[in-house]
């Protein structure tokens, strides 16, 4: 946890209310997201119990599995889920724009521009918590290898139409959610805890109810108390007033309410099957009771999810969020194309090359996200400055200089007074964005002596300026002695006798972003008095190297994957008859 987050958490404790970590929203929020609040059955891996799903916050669709151990009912649930989600996912597939992209021509081997489709927008799935994201992944894995009767008439237990397809989409969304900064599948707890710091631990922030209690506590109630209530307050019947955001349920609910209702359902079902008089009616009644129970657990979470969405929508979107959302649109479009091309479902395990590619892509995405957030948001940048990864200050001197190359290039030296303490060493690369949004590079060229300038007052400054004039004469030296005199003076007045601070002067040699000429283009070199912010991290980090094709996986990594046995991974345990891995 960074120092600034620790500070924000301490402030949150003191104020009794969550404190903002950002000034803008760093994630894309769709105008029409699909919310999905699932519940799972205790003790039964991957057995859904119910869900609220839909794009209309006032009219979610309630789906339940009255007896989760009955696989027919489970499949009926998944079919209904597909009916609800798949049309939403498909509805974004046909509105496209054309983008130009470089592709390698298979015949000539040259990179040629091609026109490709990019969906104008992409569907966005919202779940309450990180566990919900994991559940989406689990559902995807359990569904995508199923076969429908249409796909394979011989299959012994055909899955309802759309179920395998939804499994592939959920898998894609679950996998995409691992990419830092991606927004196709988001959990509210992660979204909210990115934007606010509460006075509780990260683990406690996983509880959507208590997280919201810190961010938006009821009037007059301190956040800690509201959070405690959300976590543990129970009604007269011993049930939580704020049920957990799932997919796990509260044991008290399972034991006292759900299990008896499920027994009544099982009994009624048995009677109905035997044709006992009134059995069908009792079955309908028992099912209605279960629906009511499951909804009672889901609805508060559903409302909390949309409450969180409202809070996030109140924040303005960061400038670079749209860039990243475009990558999500590419991701969606790419999967749409794979599905349309009839490709098989994603394999059970990644091969060596795919795994390495994914890891490299995610590391690049993480670096890019960190840079984007800092550039979009002065509060995030303040955290990076506090961590010594960036510094901001006022330009107090600019001295023109050129490189020694045959064709000299401008390498102006810019002196910046700052109170930040970046982790600099000689020739550390620095980056900044100019006022008109262009990237500029530089390198750290050493410390300037601020004390001398201040002690000698005018004299040193005049000398310095004269030098600059002599070297350049083009007016760059007109940066004026008044400016640096002021800066030095202000510093001495501000903190007399303190050798450690509050300010020191750093010299940055500009190395790029000044155009191609011998003279820098106008406006590319900061001027005396400008406020500038340099970062030690890159703003557009490069991706990793190209990896070999999976077919040419080297011997160190097991050689090419065996095409005959695509499902690698662990072999079944020969000692255990029931091991069907």
């Amino acid at each position, binding site marked *: 946890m960074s120092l600034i987050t620790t500070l924000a958490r301490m402030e949150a404790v003191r104020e009794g209310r969550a404190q903002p970590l950002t000034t803008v929203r760093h994630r894309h929020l769709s105008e029409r997201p699909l919310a999905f609040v699932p519940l799972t059955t205790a003790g039964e891996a991957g057995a859904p119990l119910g869900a609220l799903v839909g794009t209309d916050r006032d009219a979610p669709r309630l789906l339940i599995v009255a007896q989760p151990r009955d696989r027919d009912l489970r499949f009926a649930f998944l079919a209904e889920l597909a009916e609800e989600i798949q049309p939403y996912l498909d509805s974004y597939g046909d509105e496209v724009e054309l983008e130009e992209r470089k592709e390698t021509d298979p015949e000539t081997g040259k990179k040629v521009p091609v026109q490709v489709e990019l969906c104008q927008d992409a569907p966005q799935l919202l779940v309450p918590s990180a566990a919900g994201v994991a559940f989406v992944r689990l559902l995807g894995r359990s569904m995508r290898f199923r076969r429908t009767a249409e796909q394979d008439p011989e299959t012994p237990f055909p899955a309802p139409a759309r179920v395998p397809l939804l499994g592939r989409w959920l898998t894609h969304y679950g996998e995409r959610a691992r990419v830092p900064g991606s927004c196709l599948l988001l959990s509210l707890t992660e979204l909210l805890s990115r934007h606010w710091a509460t006075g509780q631990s990260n683990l406690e922030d996983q509880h959507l109810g208590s997280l919201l209690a810190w961010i938006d506590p009821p009037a007059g109630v301190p956040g800690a108390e509201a959070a405690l209530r959300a976590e543990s307050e129970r009604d007269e019947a011993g049930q939580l007033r704020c049920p957990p955001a799932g997919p796990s349920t509260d044991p008290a609910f399972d034991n006292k309410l759900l299990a008896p209702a499920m027994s009544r359902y099982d009994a009624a079902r048995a009677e109905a099957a035997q044709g006992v008089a009134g059995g069908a009616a009792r079955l309908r009644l028992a099912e209605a009771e279960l629906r009511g129970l499951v909804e009672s657990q889901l609805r508060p979470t559903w409302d909390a999810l949309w409450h969180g969405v409202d809070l996030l929508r109140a924040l303005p979107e960061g400038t670079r969020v749209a860039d990243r959302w475009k990558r999500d649109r590419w991701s969606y479009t790419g999967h749409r194309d794979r599905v349309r091309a009839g490709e098989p479902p994603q394999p059970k395990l990644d091969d060596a090359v795919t*795994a390495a590619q994914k890891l490299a892509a995610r590391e690049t995405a*993480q670096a890019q996200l960190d840079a984007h957030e800092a550039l979009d948001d002065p509060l995030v940048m303040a955290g990076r400055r506090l961590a010594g990864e960036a510094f901001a200050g006022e330009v107090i001197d600019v001295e023109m200089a050129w490189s020694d190359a045959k064709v000299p290039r401008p390498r102006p030296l810019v002196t910046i007074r700052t109170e930040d303490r970046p982790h600099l060493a000689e020739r550390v690369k620095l980056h900044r964005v100019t006022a008109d949004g262009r990237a500029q590079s530089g390198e750290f060229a050493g410390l300037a002596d601020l004390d001398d300038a201040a002690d000698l007052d005018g004299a040193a400054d005049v000398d310095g300026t004269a030098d600059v004039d002599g070297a350049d004469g083009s007016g760059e030296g007109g940066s004026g002695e008044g400016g640096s005199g002021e800066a030095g003076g202000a510093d001495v007045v501000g903190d007399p006798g303190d050798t450690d601070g509050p300010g020191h002067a750093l010299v940055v040699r500009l190395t790029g972003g000044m155009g191609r000429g011998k003279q820098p283009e106008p406006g590319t070199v900061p001027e005396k008095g400008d406020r500038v912010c340099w970062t030690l991290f890159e703003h557009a980090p490069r991706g990793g190297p190209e990896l070999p094709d999976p077919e040419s996986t080297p011997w*160190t990594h097991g050689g090419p994957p065996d095409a005959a046995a695509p499902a690698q991974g662990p072999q079944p345990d020969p000692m255990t008859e029931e091991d069907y891995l």
Partner: protein
Amino acid sequence: MIGADPAAAAAHPGRARAGEPFDPSAAAARATEAILHDTLHGADRGVVVDSPPGAGKSTLVVRAARELAAAGRPLMVVAQTNAQVDDLVDRLATADPELPVGRLHSSDPHPYDPVLDGHESVRASAKIADLAGLDIVVSTAAKWAHIKNVEPWRHAIVDEAYQMRSDALLAVAGLFERALFVGDPGQLDPFSVVGADQWAGLSYDPSASAVTTLLAHNPRLPQHRLPVSWRLPASAAPLVSHAFYPYTPFRSGTGHGERRLSFGVASDGSGPDRVLDEAAASGWGLLELPARRTPRTDPEAVAAVAQVVRRLLDRGAVAVSERSDEPQPVAADRIAVGTAHRDQAAAVRAALAGLGVSGVTVDTANRLQGREFDVTVVLHPLSGRPDATAFHLETGRLCVLASRHRQACVVVCRAGVAELLDEHPSTEPVQLGVTVKFPDGWEANHAVLAHLSEHRVSWRP
């Protein structure tokens, strides 16, 4: 302790015959011969060499490179950082000024150490085509990964292979037919800034070390290890071997008394002076400050580190070693300060500057890997912490910090670390299919702490 008694095994490293006195040079020479034999004449595509700290890994790499070149096998060498590459090229060119060596570098400004320009037989270029036909081409894994469409090299040496990530090896493995992998398994493992749990347990987990993947797919490759640390003094090798390499013990190349540290100026009785005397006498010193929870850049601990360094210089430390007949002064460039975090290193640098000390290396464990000094001063990774996270418990971090010195190591630490460790046993989830590493950081920390407590100087600044 689990498994065999390391102390018993330590009596016979390097296959010394029972009854004979241990001859470190002979043991090391036997190991080197076996490695070179497998590399030059073996049938396997790979050879793996484990090297404890300061066991002559660089010497081995230089020798193997020269012998492969002499055998007429074009050789590529893969190292992990530009500093490692420059150092290796410099060593190769110094060992054999006639040997044509290529330094493949990036197209950044100042891509390599200008020292290399002083060697006539070294050619540096950012393009592989410029280096075609040279006996040896050396570069970083990151640069090699961008080389495409070339005839594969007959042989490669992968240096610091335990610090290389599996995905980096994947990117370069197509460039060579056979390879010698050399590295130190006890140092810091490679890591990723994003989660890689989804691949944990797969033989080709891209976030694992290159050697882990290599051996998972090629379990029968010959594996060797270097049995003698030439860097660590006789006072340090047993502890480092026992705490960090319990199943692959090693010995120091020098015996007790062959290295000595002494001071021209007597102790003034202060904590820093007393701990320096203890370290000079025993090779280890623990300067223990009163227990307290502190921020990472604990001002008292940072000041104590700086003061120890200041006194070390002021007292005119001289070191006796097998390298020269005369005692050598321990100057600032022979001293290092090691920390866990970059902000701690920055704070120590500022404190040293405040005391007028310059020229002392101050860095984090990651950046001290592979380096060697006479005396090190370490700010204990767990000093003043309220918790012991996986980062702070990582075995490799402590191992790097405790194995950089030729003479003595002084550790500065708040009291109470043993209790802190007991309150925070390792809680990392156990992943199926992942070989559990022994010793874990928790146990290694306890082993080091138990030893240090015998050399403790309590001090209230």
